[in-house]
């Protein structure tokens, strides 16, 4: 495995960054009491110190505890929505790309139109309509409702190219039916591509969820990364000079996105070796 990573630096960097995140959360779980992430549990607006490594915010939350509790929540939203999105996307992509016909035109039409519409606005309309704000799991489902659009479109184009390959027709002549051809002949060749699409979907889902939260449409009581940034903006932390309030969430969000980005680039290189030639 290590030898493999050496040949693919981007993937290695990506995994390394996410590993840092996991270590941070694990260590954090041990060191701090998750209850401190709730408002009014610690003195407000303290600068980072030994007692409060990331400082405290205006509502009396220990930002270190908030990050340790909040980050897994944001990641959970991203992974649930991402995995749901790619699973639905893959199924639709294969149904459309392999079986073609009317269903293909419909699915392709919906995906193409869906992608020209800004996702955040649709999510806003949904979130605003739900009484009393969303819980973390509801947020994941809301984001997942649009997360399947991009995977459907990209995986479908891959299925179309694979479908014309000679070995698919040979498989048909060897007695394999549709689903068997998809699982045993097509998917194995698509794995690196599916991996890249999944990481992309997770990254897009996290971005969407943070977007909603910064607009104040997230789970108000949960200290997720997005909600923390909402309170930063709400309390104009930057103008008031409370720099520690926003540096922690931004550093973690950067870590998440950079990690996922390098993983996508790495997986893309496996799926499309020609890209590696000139980097």
């Amino acid at each position, binding site marked *: 495995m290590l030898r493999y990573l050496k040949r693919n630096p981007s993937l290695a960097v990506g995994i390394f960054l996410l590993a840092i995140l996991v270590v941070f959360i694990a260590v954090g779980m041990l060191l701090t009491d998750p209850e401190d992430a709730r408002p009014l549990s610690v003195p407000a607006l303290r600068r980072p110190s030994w007692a409060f490594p990331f400082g405290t915010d205006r509502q009396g939350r220990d930002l270190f505890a908030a990050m340790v509790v909040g980050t897994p929540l944001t990641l959970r939203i991203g992974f649930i929505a991402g995995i749901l999105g790619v699973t639905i996307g893959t199924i639709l992509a294969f149904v459309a790309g392999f079986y073609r016909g009317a269903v293909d035109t419909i699915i392709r039409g919906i995906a193409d139109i869906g992608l020209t519409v800004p996702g955040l*606005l649709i999510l806003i309309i949904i979130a605003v*309509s739900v009484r009393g704000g969303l819980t973390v799991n509801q947020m994941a489902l809301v984001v997942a409702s649009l997360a399947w659009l991009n995977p459907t479109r990209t995986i479908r184009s891959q299925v179309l190219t694979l479908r014309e390959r000679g070995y698919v027709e040979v498989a048909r002549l060897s007695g394999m039916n549709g689903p068997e051809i998809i699982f045993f002949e097509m998917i194995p060749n698509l794995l690196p591509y599916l991996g890249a699409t999944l990481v992309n979907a997770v990254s897009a889902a996290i971005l969407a969820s943070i977007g909603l939260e910064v607009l104040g449409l997230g789970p108000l009581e949960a200290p997720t990364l997005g909600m923390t940034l909402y309170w930063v903006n709400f309390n104009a932390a930057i*103008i008031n000079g409370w720099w520690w309030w926003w540096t922690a969430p931004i550093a973690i969000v950067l870590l998440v996105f950079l990690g996922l980005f390098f993983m996508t680039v790495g997986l893309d290189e496996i799926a499309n070796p020609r890209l590696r030639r000139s980097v």
Partner: protein
Amino acid sequence: MRLLYIARRFAVFLLIVWLAASLNFFLPRLSGQDPVRTKLLAEAQLGGYVQAGIEDMVKEYNQKFGLDKPLWRQYLTYVGDTTRLDFNYSISNYPRTVRDLIAEALPWTIGLLGLTTLFSFAIGTFLGALLAWPGAPRWMRYVMPPLWALHAIPFFLLGLILMYLFAFQLRLLPIFGGYSPGAAPAFNISFVLDVIAHATLPALSIVLVATGGWALGMRGMMVTTMGEDYVTFAEAKGLKVSTIFLRYCVRNAILPQTTALALALGQILSGAVLVEVIFGYPGIGALLFQAIRENDHFLIQGIVFTVIVALGFTTFILDVLYPWLDPRISYQRS
């Protein structure tokens, strides 16, 4: 054949308009009752000097979307109003209508978004093309990695960082708003400069992120194009390096890049909304944020509809221009 292609693309645009109106109508009603009604009734009990106007609105709203009316009639009325751009009054800014508010905010967003997208697309595509070219200057190698890394982070995040560095610490640029408070909006030099100063940080946070994305996309396309037979033959024809680079490689690699632009508009806009929110930039995004905070459903639906239609129209224009870029398109079924 070309007219048929344009007609088909326009049909897709009309579909998007209908879709936008339908989403605005059905999504809020998914959770059983009509949030707009509850908001209006709550507003009516508040009282206050705008009392009379709110009651008219409630009466008119019930008349159009009352419980006695069947859903499909309400839907038809709603789509009728929406396509005539009549989004009713803004609940939180009564008596101003949603249409006026949007009309005021839209130019700001078009200015910010239009310029930054075109700029980052042009620079990104150019950088990406150069980077894939073996003859590219050495220093290019070192410009790209930071742009790539920047591409991974959301616009507004970079916005926050830039705001802290340049506005708060160095006080080089204004920290908030579209123009200095108190400045009278007029087309004179000082006001324009003031606007540019305020728009610099939001624009920078979009351009620095988007450029890397376009560069990455273009480089991939160039790598594929440079392997094509017609590039090898162009070389055998003894064409100048610049001719091969521009008229054979870039000219072909730009096609999928333009399609990517059409598809990315939605995502760019979503990001720009958040940039406007954190910079208080008086565009559609900030207006939307204020509408969400005030739970002003008419304003929210008005903005969502307008933006979707505007993007749908932009995509339509790009689709219509595409055959001019790629002569093969108008002949095949796209």
